[in-house]
C-alpha cells in the first residue's frame, strides 16, 4: 500500500498508466505522514510538505514488524528484501 501527498486523481491516472493494482492513498494534508513522523518540510511544489521515503511492514495485529527509513533518497528497500521479512509474519 502506497501513501503520498498526491491527489486521488493523480493516483487514478498513475496507477492506470503503470498498471499497479495495490492500494494508493492520498494524504494531501500530511495527516498520516505527520503521525508517522515522516514530514519533509517544504520539499513539494510551492513549498508544500511531502513525505520522506519510508517503508513499514505491519502484521495482522497492527504491530510494526520491519522498518526502513532510508538515509539516502537514492537508496531504497528492495522487493526481495521485503518479501524475505514478509515470510516471517505469523499467519
Amino acid at each position: 500500500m502506497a501513501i503520498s501527498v498526491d491527489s486521488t486523481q493523480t493516483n487514478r491516472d498513475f496507477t492506470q498508466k503503470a498498471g499497479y493494482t495495490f492500494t494508493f492513498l492520498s494524504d494531501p494534508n500530511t495527516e498520516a505522514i505527520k503521525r508517522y513522523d515522516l514530514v519533509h518540510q517544504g520539499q513539494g511544489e510551492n513549498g508544500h510538505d511531502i513525505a520522506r521515503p519510508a517503508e513499514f511492514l505491519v502484521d495482522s495485529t497492527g504491530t510494526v514488524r520491519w522498518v526502513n527509513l532510508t538515509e539516502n533518497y537514492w537508496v531504497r528497500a528492495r522487493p526481495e528484501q521485503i518479501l524475505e521479512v514478509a515470510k516471517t509474519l505469523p499467519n
Partner: protein
Amino acid sequence: MQVRKFNWALWAGFLLSLGAFLSYFFVFVWFPSTRDFPWANLLLFVLAIVLLVLGLRRGFSSERSHRLRSKIVSSIVTILGVLVCAFFIFVVFVSGRWLPSSHGAPQVGQKAPEFSLSDKNDKSVSLAELLATPINGKAPRGVLLVFYRGYW
C-alpha cells in the same frame, strides 16, 4: 604550417561526462543494482576524466596551432567536465542524504498509528480495514506501508 587537428579526446571526454550524469537519471536509476550505489556512472566518469586529461595534455602540447586558444578551450572544457562529475557526486551522495531524521517514526514492536485516507476512487480506507480485508479469500498476514515523495 601545422595542420589543426580536432582534439577528439577532449570533446569525447566532455560528452561522456554529460552522458555519465544523465544516464543515471534516465537509465540506471531504474535498476536497484545500479541505483543504490551508482558504480556504472562512476566508472563512466573515470573514463570521461581520463579522456579529458588526455585532451588537456594535447591542448597544451607545443605542436598545436593556435596555442593560446587551444590551451584556453581545453582548460575550460576539462573544468566543465570535472564540474559535471562533482555535481553528480553532490546530488547522489550529499543532497540525497538531506532527509529528516524521523526519530518519532513507529519502531519495530510498536503499534502502527491508525489512519484513514482516500484511495484512488475517493473511497476512505483505514489501516484497520486494510488489515481486515481478505486477499484472495484469505485474511492478510500484514500490510506493507510505502511512504513516497509523490508528484508522479
